[in-house]
């Protein structure tokens, strides 16, 4: 009797049926053909003709498969395990989990690498997301937070968010004239030193609030009553505290009502406690005490009130901005308004997640970019692990084939493989959350060391507390990671080909498609690494750019901040003593020069103004101001381009100033400014106009922000203006740290009643002004390095596996006369091929990433191709490093051993 089964099985193969089903169909059809064959023989047909006629029943090669396709495609049933009901899908899950744990224990090295890879990827994502969540996603616990908007004003074209401070008149004009807000409330953020008879003094964050503040925010009292319109009208000496303040300082004692305390020297009576959970308007700067906005505050002038609006329903932010901007202009156009404010533009931003603070302003953009970067890292980790699992899965084909033969359903194998990868990602996440908590804590501490943070009682805790949202985020990425890592290996496992895999010496069933997929994964890793490494290069380059081209020499410069407040010195005394101090400092060996100024570069604050040059009365230029003593430029090493420095002779004569190159260009164009006059009007926080004769021009130097171009600057004579400059700068020939003692001693001798507040090197001051950028560069460099490392692991893993897989073939080649270098070339060619494909995919992505980063961070040095070129070189090096060991191993293959292999 002919064996029909091979013919039938060949026709069934495209259907990829389960072996059991395949066998059943083959048996039934073979039997049919047997019957037919026997009948034909009995009818007198020859064996050959009977065979052909029977085989003809199967018709075309593909007819059987085509007819069966629609019937069998969904006939895919879980085999029934003994003692189990197949209807319970979850029945085997515990078994799968146990099995997965066993597999993990079996290869601890692999498990450790996998978990660590995932923990780093998931941990980095969780850490950054935790901070983003605390900073940008927490909605304020008030009524309808989505309708709240913050009202800011800013210089035209200034990318910074702006400043929330308005004159009383502007507030009233906007409040009474608008149709877009249901309420416009006053709510500022201030520090208070709160103390009392039974209360130890402590600095707490609080605010001056208008009469409708609590009502508009929908806040209820826990006990007592809250500040109302009458309190604001009467400027009552009352205060409301937060529930957490009540708990921590009064242990929830109801007797708090009526307690008299002082808030920054103002005696107030506590009239109520806000509802539990309310902490004011900022997620980072949680407020504990509120005082009514009093009449006295109105005298603060242009920045008297901080404003928060509640949009009417249906009103958009652009609509609100349009109307409020008109009203703001109306207020500023009044004759008694400060003309300085006329330059300002209005900006309205959503405040449902809290008002902007230095923390949000400083961290939002870096965090957004970091989030994208760590997302890429996770993707890389997924590709890496998927590759490793796939390679390991290929090594397990034999085992899987045995299981299929014993009746395991493919769906079941799929689930089991996925269980393994999900379990890995779950454990990775648990480790990741642990890492994330400490990473977020460390990151926040580093951020907090920046100059904007000093002295701010910022509640950073909220930034590192993982809440439900963070946990959901982490769970979601863990699940996604598990599926991403496991999908390919699971598919490959469920396609285990029992027949071929069980043959002795078989190539364990790995198909060309699977090998190509594995290579594709490595290429993807190279591509993602390229993006990460080139971004790292970009940010490190940016940092270097920030630290250089300052316009002054940052090394060997010691800065001393003095506190003249309680010295009682007048301008004349200051003038005399400061000159004496400079003289004595100059006498210290190692000091080359010293000078006083009102501000030092990158110190933080600054004074701004609009200046008009004589001959150009209609043109005003935004300028920054500083007041300096003689030898300022000599000390800072800013070059003189024309004219002269201030001198003692100037004190008797008319007002003189030195301007920088930008100011000269902007105010005077091509004319020579020396001897001409310039009039800065309405210098920040002052009212008067002053006209200066220009005596010198110096090179441009950075003023307040390293990431802004050097602004047009006017330097006026500190002594001539009768100001007291608290910033002392000392240029040294040696390490400035070594001179600190001598400087302290000299200062104490000359300025007996003036304490030194702070002493730091210029480099430290610069670094503290760019903490986010530094961290950002360090983090992206770290992520880039990690990315490259993962790519090495991925590439090495695949190549090492390929070499083992091809040992037999390599042995044959060597036996046939291939030289060791030929063998090495094979492995290297494989590696470089994958790297090149990765680079080809990654390069456009890197360019795109660069453009995206540049759109978020102005001044990024995107024009330079260096980061990408460098990254390409690094990735090629990575490829060669990863290929080295496998290549060496391939070269040492002994043909005799290889041919006996397997």
């Amino acid at each position, binding site marked *: 009797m002919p064996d029909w089964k091979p013919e039938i099985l060949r026709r069934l193969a495209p259907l990829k049926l389960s072996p059991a089903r395949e066998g059943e169909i083959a048996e039934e*059809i073979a039997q*049919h053909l047997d019957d037919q064959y026997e009948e034909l023989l009995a009818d007198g047909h020859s064996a050959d003709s009977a065979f052909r006629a029977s085989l003809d029943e*199967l018709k075309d090669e593909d007819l059987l498969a085509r007819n*069966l396709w629609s*019937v069998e495609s969904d006939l895919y049933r879980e085999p029934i395990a003994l003692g189990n009901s197949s209807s319970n899908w979850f029945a085997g899950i515990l078994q799968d989990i146990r099995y997965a744990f066993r597999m993990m224990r079996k290869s601890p090295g692999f498990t450790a690498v996998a978990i660590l890879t995932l923990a780093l990827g998931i941990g980095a994502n969780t850490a950054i997301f935790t901070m983003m969540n605390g900073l940008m996603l927490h909605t304020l616990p008030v009524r309808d937070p989505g309708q709240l908007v913050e009202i800011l004003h800013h210089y035209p074209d200034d990318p910074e968010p702006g400043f929330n401070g308005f004159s009383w008149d502007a507030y009233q004009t906007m409040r009474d004239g608008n149709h877009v807000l249901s309420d416009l409330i006053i709510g500022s953020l201030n520090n208070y030193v709160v103390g009392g008879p039974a209360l130890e003094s402590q600095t707490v964050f609080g605010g001056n609030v208008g009469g409708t503040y609590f009502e508009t925010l929908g806040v209820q009292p826990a006990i007592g009553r809250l500040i109302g319109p009458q309190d604001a009208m009467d400027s009552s000496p009352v205060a409301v505290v937060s529930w957490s303040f009540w708990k921590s300082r009064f242990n929830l004692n109801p007797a708090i009502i009526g307690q008299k305390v002082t808030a920054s020297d103002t005696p107030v009576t506590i009239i109520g406690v806000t509802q539990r959970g309310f902490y004011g308007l900022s997620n980072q700067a949680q407020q504990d005490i509120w005082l009514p906005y009093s009449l006295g505050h109105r005298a603060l002038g242009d920045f008297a009130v901080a404003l928060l609006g509640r949009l009417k329903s249906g009103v958009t932010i652009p609509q609100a901005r349009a109307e409020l901007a008109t009203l703001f202009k109306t207020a500023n156009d009044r004759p008694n308004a400060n003309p300085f404010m006329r330059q300002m533009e209005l900006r309205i931003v959503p405040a449902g997640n809290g008002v902007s603070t230095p923390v949000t302003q400083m961290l939002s953009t870096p965090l957004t970019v970091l989030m994208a970067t760590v997302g890429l890292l996770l993707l890389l980790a997924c590709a890496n692990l998927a590759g490793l699992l796939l390679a390991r899965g290929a090594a397990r084909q034999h085992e899987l084939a045995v299981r299929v033969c014993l009746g395991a359903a493919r769906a079941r194998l799929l689930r089991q493989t996925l269980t393994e990868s999900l379990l890995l990602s779950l454990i990775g996440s648990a480790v990741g959350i642990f890492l994330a908590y400490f990473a977020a804590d460390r990151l926040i501490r580093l951020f907090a060391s920046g100059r904007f943070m000093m002295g701010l009682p910022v509640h950073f805790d909220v930034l590192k507390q993982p809440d439900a949202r963070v946990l959901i985020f982490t769970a979601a990425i863990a699940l996604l990671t598990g599926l991403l890592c496991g999908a390919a290996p699971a598919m490959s496992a469920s396609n285990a080909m029992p027949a071929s895999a069980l043959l002795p010496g078989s190539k364990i069933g790995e198909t060309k498609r699977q090998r190509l997929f594995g290579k594709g994964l490595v290429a993807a890793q190279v591509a993602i690494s390229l993006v990460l490494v080139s971004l790292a290069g970009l940010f490190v380059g940016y940092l270097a750019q920030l630290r250089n081209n300052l316009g002054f020499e940052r090394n060997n410069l010691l800065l001393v901040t003095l506190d003249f407040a309680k010295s009682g010195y007048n301008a004349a005394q200051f003038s005399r003593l400061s000159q004496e101090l400079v003289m004595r400092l100059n006498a210290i060996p190692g000091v080359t020069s010293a000078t006083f100024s009102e501000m030092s570069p990158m110190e933080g604050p600054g004074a701004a103004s609009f200046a008009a040059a004589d001959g150009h009365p209609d043109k005003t230029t935004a300028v920054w101001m500083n007041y300096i003593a003689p030898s300022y430029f000599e000390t800072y090493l800013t070059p003189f381009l024309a004219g002269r420095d201030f001198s003692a002779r100037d004190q008797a004569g008319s007002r003189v100033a030195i301007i920088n190159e930008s100011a000269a260009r902007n105010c005077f164009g091509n004319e020579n400014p020396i001897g001409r006059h310039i009039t800065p009007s309405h210098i920040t926080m002052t009212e008067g106009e002053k006209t200066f004769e220009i005596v010198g021009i110096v090179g441009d130097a950075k003023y307040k922000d390293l990431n802004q171009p050097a602004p047009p600057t006017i330097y006026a004579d500190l002594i001539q203006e009768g100001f007291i400059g608290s910033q002392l700068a000392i240029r040294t020939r040696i390490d400035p740290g070594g001179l600190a003692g001598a400087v302290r001693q000299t200062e104490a001798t000359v300025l007996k009643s003036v304490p030194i507040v702070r002493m730091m090197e210029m480099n430290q001051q610069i670094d503290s002004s760019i903490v986010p950028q530094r961290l950002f560069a360090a983090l992206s460099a770290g992520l880039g390095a990690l990315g490259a490392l993962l790519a090495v692991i991925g590439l090495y893993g695949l190549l090492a596996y390929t070499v083992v897989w091809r040992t037999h073939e390599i042995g044959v080649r060597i036996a046939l006369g291939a030289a060791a270098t030929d063998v090495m070339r094979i492995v290297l060619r494989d590696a470089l091929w994958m790297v090149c494909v990765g680079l080809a995919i990654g390069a456009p992505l890197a360019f795109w990433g660069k453009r995206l980063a540049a759109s978020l961070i102005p001044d990024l040095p995107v024009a330079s191709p260096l980061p990408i070129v460098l990254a390409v070189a690094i990735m090629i090096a990575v490829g060669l490093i990863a290929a080295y060991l496998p290549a060496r191993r391939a070269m040492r293959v002994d043909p005799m051993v290889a041919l006996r292999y397997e």
Partner: protein
Amino acid sequence: MDKTASQVEWKKGSAELLILSLVEARPRHGYEISKLIEQRSGGTVRFHVASLYPLLYRLERRGWLLGRWVEKNGQRRRRYYRLTRQGRKVLASQLRGWQEFVAGINRITEAENA
């Protein structure tokens, strides 16, 4: 339409009906079903293996037939198909429909040829 083509069309429409009615009386295996169809149609209707078995599996999937491996002494095991309760209902309704259809056709053709 030539003879073969029209036979293919009829076969398609009637195949399910033929199989269901053949297993109505008692369970039969695939070869037996195909032989019966061929014999009773006088050789005009034939199902080859590549069509018959997919059709049997389809009817089984629909729950109209139930296939069972049956082992008899001294013989190889065979798969027998029997009509299910649902299959019986389907058969009855298909038969009715077929008879009405044939009657309708007859009425038309008889009227034309009278």
